[in-house]
């Protein structure tokens, strides 16, 4: 269901985590992901998970709200788990014809799944605690140094703002078109691959046309509201570093250090 996707959604609040600068959160999230791939053993995962749950606690975002986001990507996690389970060589635990499960496979599959879950929780926590506009402002500022070598940082940020804004709209639109074509007897569930691909045409064409219409309307509305590129633009809430960001940076450094140390356990 469309309402269940939490990635890219914002959960209004005023916690310490919400108040952090978007740039801090973007960099911390990237760092957390890198650290996740440095984790080697059970203890490392325990520490990484505990750290994540401490942050969730501080953010005051309900845990069930975060886990809702996981259901949408459950398939990907399950797929990764299964692939790792069967594909790793080592001490055989169970065997059936050409399938075999190894001790190493089990541990790898388990670690990969936990890694993915933490990765997704971490990045959804970033979007849940950061207003989309702050997120894109943060991104714009982080990319600013690269504009000297021709990277259009403002345009990239604006594209992200609009994409985040219109994801729900386009999802609803798609849902509506699918239902309307089903009402006209269209069948998307049976037949071979080619047949199914062809069955998508009655959805894709209206979706494209409607997206273009939305884009046209939006461009006009933006022009009417005096949008003329990034120069001379101000921001309602200028993002700024505070003391909290320094503390957050220190905590991240300590966390990274502990994980590195945990590798030798």
């Amino acid at each position, binding site marked *: 269901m469309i309402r269940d996707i939490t990635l890219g959604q914002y959960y209004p609040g005023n916690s310490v985590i919400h108040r952090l600068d978007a740039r801090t959160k973007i960099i911390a999230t990237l760092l957390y992901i890198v650290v996740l791939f440095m984790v080697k053993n059970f203890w490392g995962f325990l520490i990484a998970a505990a750290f994540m749950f401490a942050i969730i606690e501080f953010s005051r975002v309900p845990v069930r709200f975060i886990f809702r986001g996981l259901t949408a990507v459950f398939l990907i996690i399950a797929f990764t788990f299964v692939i790792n389970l069967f594909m790793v060589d080592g001490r055989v635990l169970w065997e059936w014809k050409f399938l075999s499960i190894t001790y190493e496979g089990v541990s790898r599959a388990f670690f990969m799944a936990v890694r993915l879950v933490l990765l997704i929780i971490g990045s959804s926590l970033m979007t849940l605690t950061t207003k*989309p506009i702050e997120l894109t402002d943060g991104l714009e500022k982080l990319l600013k140094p690269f504009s000297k070598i021709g990277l259009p940082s403002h345009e990239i940020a604006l594209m992200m703002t609009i994409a985040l804004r219109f994801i729900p709209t386009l999802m609803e639109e798609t849902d509506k078109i699918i239902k309307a074509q089903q009402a006209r007897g269209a069948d998307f569930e049976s037949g071979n691959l080619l047949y199914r691909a062809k069955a998508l045409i009655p959805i894709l064409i209206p979706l494209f046309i409607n997206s273009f219409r939305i884009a046209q309307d939006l461009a006009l509305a933006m022009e009417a509201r005096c949008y003329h590129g990034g120069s001379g633009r101000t921001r309602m809430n200028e993002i700024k570093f505070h003391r909290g960001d320094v503390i957050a940076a220190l905590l991240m450094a300590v966390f990274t250090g502990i994980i590195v140390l945990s590798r030798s356990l």
Partner: protein
Amino acid sequence: MAFISVRDLTLEFTKYDEEGRAESSNKALDTISLDIEKGSFTAVVGMNGSGKSTLAKCLNGLLLPTEGSVNVDGMDTSDDSHIWDIRSKVGMVFQNPDNQIVSSIVEDDVAFGPENLGIEPAEICRRVDDALRKVGMYEKKDKPAHMLSGGQKQRIAIAGAVAMRPDCIIFDEPTAMLDPSGRGKVMEIIKELNAEGITCILITHFMEEAAESDRIIALKDGRIASDSSPIDLFSDARLIEELGLELPPAIELRERLGMDKCVSNIEDMADEIRGRAQQGRNSFSE
């Protein structure tokens, strides 16, 4: 000089063939002249394709005249150097509430216009809060816009225009996609804004909405077919028919009962009916 002054405005859309040669052209607007005074409330009506929206887009320079001129507060829309001044003075609200909201969160969207104007952050905050209070959406300021109803989204779009502190706002069929309660609320806000001195131009298919204005301009095939007070327009039933419009119910009733056009409200109508009934009884008793 009037706040907006349109002189002999003609707008041609030219269709090109595959080699880029002009194939056919079609006049969306044809020698239109009109003045809009500061503080007025003008409705623009006409069938689909009569040029209403095209005219609206000419008034803030979203479209430029092929011939003739449009002046806003003494500035020509064809003059590039004034275009942002003009658009900050003449705001616009469009038909589809979904397709004009730029940011995910309500207050960030309302701030979009003032941010483009390069206004100080503290002042933007003040304006955004003011604008949201004016449309009764202050409580929803930190909510995601896509969770709101159509009527609420349209109020956010109006707040977005109001936050730019324009002298004039053009409403291009703002109620066409709303349910009755959303429509009622939007009309209320438009009337309030007008009472506060903002010049309002309302494009609409709903005659009962047009009847709320001081002046109705009716378009047909890109030309002005009528430009008069609502009372005068709606007392010309033949013209209404010809323009593909319809009478607001109260006026249709008045026409059906053959009453004079000075019977302009329910009070008068009830008096007139009472009088006629009285008269009937008197002549009967004679």
